[in-house]
């Protein structure tokens, strides 16, 4: 997933969401429509079962009336002989449903003599025939139709039976006991029966057709199939023997509910087709038999199933369509992006002339392409500018290098400068912070005895400072002539600098003259760091201030000189603030204290080594910290005349 393309992610997420939504809607729709159908089926099924049961009951109850009425009559009159025969014949003749009828008497109940007598009239073709059932072989007393109503003292419908004489039709008999009072004692006198063919009943039930394979069936009180589309079950099997044959406990349970006169609506597996059905069952109120009607689930669900199939097909088509649309959209996004990615790789290798594909979609991708093109153009412009700037900078740098060389060129750089003069040793060094600096130092003889020397520090840095330094150095050289004292030189130089100083630069300056014959040092300090005198005895002392300020600030300032005498071995150390203000990474300054310590450590060494020693310490102190100010040091050791 992580490394898959945009199209894949889109397809996966969108389609899985859509599928989920579709399945939810589909499932709900299916469940709901199924529920509605089941509810409708149940309602219709109950109605159908009740209607059919009523239809049958109407016929059966009307038949029940005939022997019941006859029982009433026979219970009150001693109707016998031809009279009784005519009555029975009439009943059979005038009730089309009644197939046969008898009055079976208890022993001696007919005429006080006959052990058994049962005149029986029955239809045979178009004729009405007679026979006496009271034969020794038939033993009607032990027949169900006689014995059960007699023992129960109430009318009963017998279990359906095959009539062996009448062409294998299923019959049932309604038997009604009748009573007579003999010698003041009421007792059973016999049983009156009506035999009916159940063909019409079978037809009614057989006419129930639900969808293609749904059907109705009727079971007797014993659970025997009275009607069923599967002929071999009829009058042969009970619903319980079927349950046993199939090992179907549920069928047995339903069968028990049916024969117990209950009604219901249950799932049921068809005995005929094996299909899963719903079955409604309801009892006949007359004979206590039970009607079952089967509604094949799949056939009733056929419409829903067909609808669902169509919905699924539409869903699948929609799925495919959506897939294509997403692929199209994803492609329209990813194709320009891939092209842009390719262009970006080209640009990364430095090819800024690569053509950015023109995307006219106007959407985010189009804007990206435009931005990309703009970026490329800007980058190209920037690189062109950079090249130009770099060239200019290089030129300036080279010019600065030249300026550096020139600046260094105007400073004395040969040491020892006066090798033939043993009266003193002199050493100086300068280390500009940039190519060109604002520090200066110089020394020269005013006459045979007086060595003039100075160290200055122009405010600011860089080119302006260096130019100002050059001016200052030149002015000092011009003004310091024979017989001039440091204060005069400083006054004049100050005036010269102040007169025309548009940049408002200034310079601190220490200028001294050393009489090499007697060691007298006359000096004037124009706002510069006080130098140190390193006595031959080892003492280090700061040169006393002269109260001067930096040059170029006040034109009329009057500088004053002071004198100090250097004895043999004494030295003066002059430096710019670049020494004491050198910083390390902890922003600590090198400071006068460290400098004094260094001078104390290095005293007695040759002058060049002292300067080199201090310089080494400064570098050691500031480590890699960039140098912020020019560093200038000058030392003169007086050796006596």
């Amino acid at each position: 997933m992580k490394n898959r393309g945009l199209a894949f992610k889109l397809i996966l997420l969108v389609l899985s969401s859509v599928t989920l939504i579709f399945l939810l809607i589909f499932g709900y729709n299916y469940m709901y429509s199924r529920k509605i159908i089941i509810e409708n089926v149940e309602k219709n099924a109950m109605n159908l079962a009740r209607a059919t049961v009523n239809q049958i009951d109407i016929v059966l109850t009307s038949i029940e009336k005939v022997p019941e009425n006859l029982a009433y009559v026979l219970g009150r009159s001693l109707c016998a002989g031809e009279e009784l025969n005519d009555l029975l014949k009439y009943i059979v003749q005038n009730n089309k449903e009644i197939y046969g009828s008898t009055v079976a008497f208890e022993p001696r109940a007919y005429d006080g003599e006959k052990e058994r007598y049962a005149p029986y009239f029955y239809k045979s073709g178009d004729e009405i025939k007679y026979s006496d059932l009271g034969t020794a072989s038939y033993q009607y007393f032990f027949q169900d139709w006689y014995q059960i109503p007699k023992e129960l003292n109430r009318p009963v419908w017998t279990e359906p039976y095959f009539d062996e004489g009448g062409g294998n039709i299923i019959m049932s008999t309604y038997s009604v006991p009748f009573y007579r009072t003999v010698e003041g004692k009421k007792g059973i006198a016999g049983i009156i029966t009506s035999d009916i063919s159940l063909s019409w009943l079978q037809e009614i039930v057989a006419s129930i057709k639900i969808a293609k394979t749904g059907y109705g069936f009727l079971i007797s009180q014993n659970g025997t199939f009275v009607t069923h589309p599967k002929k071999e079950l009829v009058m042969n099997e009970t619903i319980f023997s079927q349950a046993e044959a199939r090992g179907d406990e549920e069928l047995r349970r339903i069968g028990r509910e049916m024969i117990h006169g209950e009604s219901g609506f249950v799932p049921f597996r068809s005995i005929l087709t094996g299909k899963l059905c719903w079955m409604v069952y309801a009892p006949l109120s007359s004979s206590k038999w039970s009607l079952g009607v089967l509604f094949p689930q799949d056939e009733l669900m056929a419409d829903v199933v067909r609808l669902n199939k169509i919905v699924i097909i539409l869903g699948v088509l929609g799925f495919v369509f959506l897939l294509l649309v997403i692929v199209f959209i994803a492609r329209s996004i990813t194709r320009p992006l891939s092209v842009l990615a390719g262009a970006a790789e080209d640009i990364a290798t430095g090819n800024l002339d690569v053509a950015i594909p023109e995307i006219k979609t106007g959407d985010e991708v189009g804007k990206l392409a435009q931005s990309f093109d703009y970026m490329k153009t800007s980058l190209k412009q920037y690189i062109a500018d950079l090249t130009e700037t770099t060239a200019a900078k290089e030129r300036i740098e080279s010019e600065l290098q030249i300026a550096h060389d020139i600046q260094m060129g105007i400073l004395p750089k040969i040491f020892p400068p006066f090798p033939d003069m043993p009266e003193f040793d002199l050493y100086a060094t300068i280390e500009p912070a940039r190519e060109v600096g604002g520090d200066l130092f110089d020394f020269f003889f005013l006459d045979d005895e007086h060595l003039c020397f100075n160290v200055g520090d122009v405010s600011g840095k860089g080119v302006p400072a260096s130019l100002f330094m050059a001016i200052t150095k030149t002015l000092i050289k011009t003004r310091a002539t024979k017989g001039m004292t440091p204060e005069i030189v400083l006054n004049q130089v100050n005036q010269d600098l102040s007169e025309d100083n548009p940049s408002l630069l200034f310079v601190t300056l220490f200028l001294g003259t050393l009489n090499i014959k007697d060691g007298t040092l006359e000096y004037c300090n124009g706002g510069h760091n006080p130098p140190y005198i390193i006595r031959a005895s080892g003492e280090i002392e700061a040169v006393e201030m002269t109260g001067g300020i930096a040059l170029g600030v006040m034109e009329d300032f009057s500088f004053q000189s002071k004198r100090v005498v250097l004895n043999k071995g004494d030295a003066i150390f002059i430096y710019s603030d670049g020494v004491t203000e050198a910083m390390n990474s902890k922003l600590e300054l090198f400071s006068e204290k460290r400098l004094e310590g260094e001078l104390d450590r290095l005293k007695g060494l040759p002058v060049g080594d002292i300067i080199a020693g201090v310089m080494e310490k400064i570098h050691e102190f500031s480590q890699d910290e960039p140098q912020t100010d020019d560093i200038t040091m000058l030392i003169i050791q007086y050796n006596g005349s």
Partner: protein
Amino acid sequence: MVNVKMREKCKLLIAVTLFMIIVCVAPAEGDALKKASFIPQWVPQAQFAGYYIGLEKGIYRKHGIDLTIITGGPDYSPSELLTDGRADFASLWLSTGIQMRAGGEKILNIAQIMQRSALMLVAKKASGIERPRDINGRKVGLWGPVFQIQPRAFFKKYGLTVQVVPQSFSVNLFLRDGVDVASAMWYNEYHTILNCGIEPGELTTFFFHEHDLNFPEDGIYVLEETYRRDPALCAAFVLASIEGWRYAFDHPGEALAVTMRNLQKEHIPTTLVHQKWMLERMKDLILPEKGGDAGMGGLLPADYSRVARGLRSIGLIESVPRFTSFYKVIRDSDEK
């Protein structure tokens, strides 16, 4: 491929050879076959599966008998057919046999097929009958005299006074509560009751063999005269019948198929599950797990005297015939 064909050819050859042998031998046997007839008490249900499968499988022919089984049923009385010579062998209850012998009929029991009594009384627990004494004062459905010996002995044993209602062949009177207690054969009516939707747990059953009233039922009977004339035929018939029963118990599927076919031929409605139940019960009755000391087809003197004394006690017979004059031992040689 070749091997298979070869094998097929060999099989065919063997089959043809066997067929030839049978064809050649059969006529010779046919000449020697003795004609005999047999009448069971009732229709060709699984109660007689052993005889019918024996006929079907040629077991009787194997024993040298060309047997005809007379289809029994309500129209035929096996005892009558036996005594008037229309049937050589008959299946009768032991009690019937003893009664006939005591009544002067010269008949012999040559095999007591059923070792145990299948007759029982059954009641609905809903009617409050759970123990023998609960039957007192109730309506009890009883069949004809032969079927009343045990119930009456039972009532006597427990001191019960009951209202006897003659019971027909259907159990509907019981199902509709016309009687509180009904007679039933374990292998027949009891199952019919179950298949009318009554649970076994809803019924109380009284098996007579559990109340010291075991009256073994179906046995094979022959006229003394027949036995004297051709004891070999009698022995062959008994051995073939026992072999038939063994075959039926070992091949219940085949036995049931034959039974169903015979019943359908007679247009007698039945169900396979009912016949299956009946055959399984026959095995319980013919080869009981407990008892059966007499061996298959044997009659124990104790069983004989119990039944005979039972008959005498209610006046159905006056004196008990001698056991040895009643029963002739024919043993399946496999038994020993």
